[in-house]
């Protein structure tokens, strides 16, 4: 090895001598650059040469497509050379398999999946009517019927968006509607099914408890109503949900402060029952300190803090982190 070591020392000496002069450094930099460029270029050419010699380039080449996909750049036309007018199209609803006009698909799907503002009312109506045996309204309500409601509520819907954003306005709307005798149908929600959320006030404690294993249940300050989203509802925190249930137990015998509760059944889900019961059970056992990227939409606001670090998040929770900006985009 000493042979090598000697040569290394010699090299280092020569190097120091060389770089002591700044003009040498510049000249050397230039030369080294040129060498590197030569070598990189050689490498690129080798890549091509190799793929040609090994046949990969042929394999890659294949038979070109004969159709032209050239972009069209003419006024009044889109890039495909088509006119800029909307043609009507149909699609098959994945939920019910019916054919639906594409431009009304979202509306349809909402009702179809039982999520719309009207869905609960329609469902309640259905239940109420089937038990009263009114032939005209039994079975599936036609889409047209719903559309009438739709346009009415659209007009009324002047975004009363409060701090908790988009969903709340949905709930507030039903306040209008329920008290509004002018709406189509005019059925009264409250005569519906005994243990449904709309009848919360009159339910027994056991039933309330049962209900609260299925829905978020937090009372909105603004609308005084229970949130009927799932237990994973991002708008409210686990603490709030716990409080709510604790409240129920505490005022079990006494007079509850739930007199003014008005329940919106928009988002009540049947299916989540077991999962949600499990979730509730787990709360007492673990405090999750993990943040998910879906939780932490970063914000400059220092008053909001992630769930992980500050457990006293005072009802802001995820809601404050996620921008509740909900610009309305009306369709066409």
């Amino acid at each position, binding site marked *: 090895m000493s042979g090598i070591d000697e040569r290394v020392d010699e*090299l280092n000496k*020569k*190097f120091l001598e060389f*770089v002591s002069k700044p003009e040498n450094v510049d000249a*050397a930099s230039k030369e080294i650059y040129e060498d*590197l460029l030569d070598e990189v270029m050689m*490498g*690129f050419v080798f890549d091509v040469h190799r793929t*040609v010699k090994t046949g990969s380039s042929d394999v890659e080449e294949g038979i070109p497509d004969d159709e032209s996909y050239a972009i069209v750049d003419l006024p009044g036309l889109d890039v495909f050379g088509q006119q800029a007018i909307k043609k009507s199209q149909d699609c098959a609803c994945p939920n019910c398999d019916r054919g639906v006009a594409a431009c009304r698909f979202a509306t349809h799907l909402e009702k179809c999946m039982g999520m719309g503002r009207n869905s609960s009312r329609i469902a309640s109506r259905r239940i109420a009517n089937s038990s009263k045996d009114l032939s005209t309204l039994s079975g599936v309500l036609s889409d047209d019927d719903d559309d009438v409601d739709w346009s009415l509520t659209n007009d009324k819907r002047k975004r009363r968006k409060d701090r908790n954003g988009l969903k709340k306005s949905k709930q507030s709307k039903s306040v209008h509607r329920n008290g509004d005798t002018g709406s189509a149908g005019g059925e009264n929600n409250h005569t519906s099914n005994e243990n449904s959320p709309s009848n919360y006030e009159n339910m027994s404690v056991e039933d309330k408890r049962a209900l609260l294993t299925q829905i978020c249940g937090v009372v909105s300050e603004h609308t005084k109503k229970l949130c009927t989203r799932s237990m994973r509802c991002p708008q409210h925190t686990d603490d709030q949900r716990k409080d709510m249930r604790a409240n129920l137990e505490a005022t079990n015998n006494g007079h509850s402060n739930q007199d003014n509760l008005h329940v919106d059944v928009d988002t009540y889900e049947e299916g989540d029952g077991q999962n949600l019961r499990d979730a509730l059970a787990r709360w007492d056992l673990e405090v999750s300190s993990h943040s998910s990227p879906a939780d932490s939409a970063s914000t400059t606001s220092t008053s909001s803090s992630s769930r992980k670090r500050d457990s006293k998040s005072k009802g802001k929770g995820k809601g404050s982190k996620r921008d509740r900006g909900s610009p309305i985009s009306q369709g066409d």
Partner: protein
Amino acid sequence: MKSAPHQRLVMVGDRDALKELLRLRLVECGWRDQVKIICKDLIKENGQDIAYDTLLSTVTSRARSLVPDSVKKELLQKIKNHLMAQEESLKS
């Protein structure tokens, strides 16, 4: 003595890294694609039996001048910095 700077950079591994940087920049700015096109055109003219040397000499004459100035500047600066850094580390 003239080969000393080159040799020193090889020894400490900097040369490989600098070469990789240059390569990345030349891919990023599309120069490599230009080289590929020149090659492919040549192959179309002369057939697939073409020798490496032919490809290289054609590319050298046509593509070398197409390297963007910004790439050259960046590399020159980095090379110089590394030479100086080596000087420092040897002196200490």
